[in-house]
Structures are given as structure tokens and as C-alpha cells.
């Protein structure tokens, strides 16, 4: 086994159940993950897709789903011609309760040598995890009140 390329950790004041919900529900992911929706039924072996404004960005397969402790999927970029030909990588989320906090460890591994995907990934996850933490702790990840949009009947 090769060592993982990335290990990210964040401590979030929440419960494992709420964090699991945030990691697996599009209602939440749209708020902290640049509008991304998660298309899957979360059953092991099921297909998985990250869809951003109607465009499928990445795809994979659910590898593990042990609610609310451990979630894993394979991850392959779907758009860029070079990156879509790289072999699938693996994403693992580990949720560990520590008193009032949950330690979320994200590992991303099995990149090809000289992977182009690796560069984009190293910028994406810290932003996503940081926004996820803000959303769960303060509830204000991009929370624009509908009334502020000034659309009649939408508030």
C-alpha cells in the first residue's frame, strides 16, 4: 500500500450524525461545496457523481458507508481530457467524536505519478473543509436570506 498523498484534519463542533448528514446530503453540500450536488444512494458498490450546476465534474463508486463513522468512495475527474484518463483515486472520511467536537480526517490517495488532478485537489479540499466547518458551527456558509434577493413570492 502506498502512503496517502493528502491527509486533512478539521475539528468541528457538531455531532457525528450531523456531520454525516452534511457529507452525504446535497441540501448541505450545495452550501459548502461550490454548489455541488452529490448523486448517489450511498450503498456500497453504487455509482457516485459530483454535479456542479448541472455538469458532472467527478464520478466514482461507493466503497464504504459505515454511518456515522467512515465513508469512502473512488474518485475520478470527468471533464478535463487529461485528468479523466487518470486512474481512479480514493477518498476516505473518518469521523471520530471527541467530547463536543468531531475530528474529521479526510485522506485522498492513489494518484498517478505526475497526476494533474493532484494539483487541483490540493486547492479544493482545504476550502471545502473550511467552509463545511463554518456552516456546521455558525450555520452561515453563504446564507443569503431569500428575502434579500428581492424576488416576489420568494422569501
Amino acid at each position: 500500500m502506498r502512503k496517502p498523498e493528502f491527509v486533512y484534519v478539521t475539528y468541528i463542533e457538531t455531532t457525528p450524525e450531523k456531520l454525516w448528514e452534511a457529507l452525504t446530503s446535497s441540501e448541505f453540500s450545495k452550501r459548502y461545496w461550490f454548489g455541488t450536488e452529490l448523486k448517489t444512494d450511498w450503498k456500497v458498490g453504487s455509482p457516485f457523481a459530483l454535479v456542479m450546476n448541472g455538469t458532472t465534474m467527478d464520478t466514482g463508486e461507493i466503497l464504504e458507508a459505515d454511518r456515522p463513522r467512515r465513508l469512502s468512495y473512488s474518485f475520478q475527474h470527468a471533464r478535463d481530457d487529461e485528468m479523466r484518463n487518470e486512474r481512479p483515486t480514493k477518498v476516505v472520511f473518518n469521523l471520530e467524536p471527541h467530547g463536543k467536537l468531531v475530528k474529521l480526517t479526510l485522506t485522498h490517495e492513489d494518484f498517478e505519478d505526475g497526476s494533474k488532478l493532484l494539483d487541483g485537489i490540493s486547492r479544493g479540499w482545504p476550502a471545502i473543509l473550511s467552509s463545511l466547518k463554518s456552516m456546521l458551527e455558525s450555520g452561515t456558509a453563504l446564507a443569503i436570506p431569500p428575502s434579500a434577493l428581492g424576488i416576489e413570492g420568494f422569501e
Partner: protein
Amino acid sequence: MDEVFKALADASRRSLLDRLHAKNGQTLNDLCDGLAMTRQAVTKHLAILEAANLVTTFRHGREKLHYLNPVPIHQIGERWIKKFERGKLAALSELKRQLEKRDA
């Protein structure tokens, strides 16, 4: 957030982060290699970086690997940088990088 600033306020600790940024997932021995710091000093600095969650460790077989964890640095950015400024700041920092590279 205090721990993050304290941890970053030291050139030796920043150089350890630079080494992990260049090559992620190193053992204590890898990190000590070629550094003008004692093993004890490196261990002490790593403990401070770990307490600030800037470095995270991961067991890989028998080895304990150290990874740069930039999530807290991102949170500092999020606190003071508004979303719409991000593009301009990225452009400015790229400009600075290019100009300084040319001078060197």
C-alpha cells in the same frame, strides 16, 4: 486561532511546513535529514504545529507520517478575505511572484 498564529510565528516551524509543502507525508527521520536542527528541536516544533492542527500525523504501516494540514490557514483567509476579493488577491500574489522571480 491563537495557536495557529503562535505556531506560525517561528522561522524554524515555518521551514518545517515548507518541507512538508514540498513533499507531504514524511517521517521524523525524513524531516530531520539535512536540517540544522537537533532531533529534539524538530520533535518539539512538530508538537507545537500538531497542537495548532497545522501538521497532522498518519500511521502508515510501522511509520508515523507527517502531513501539512492547510485547513486552519484557509480558515484565517476566510475570516478576513471576502469572496469577491479572492480573484483579485490571487492575481496580485501571482504578479508579485512573477516580478520577484524575474529579479532573482
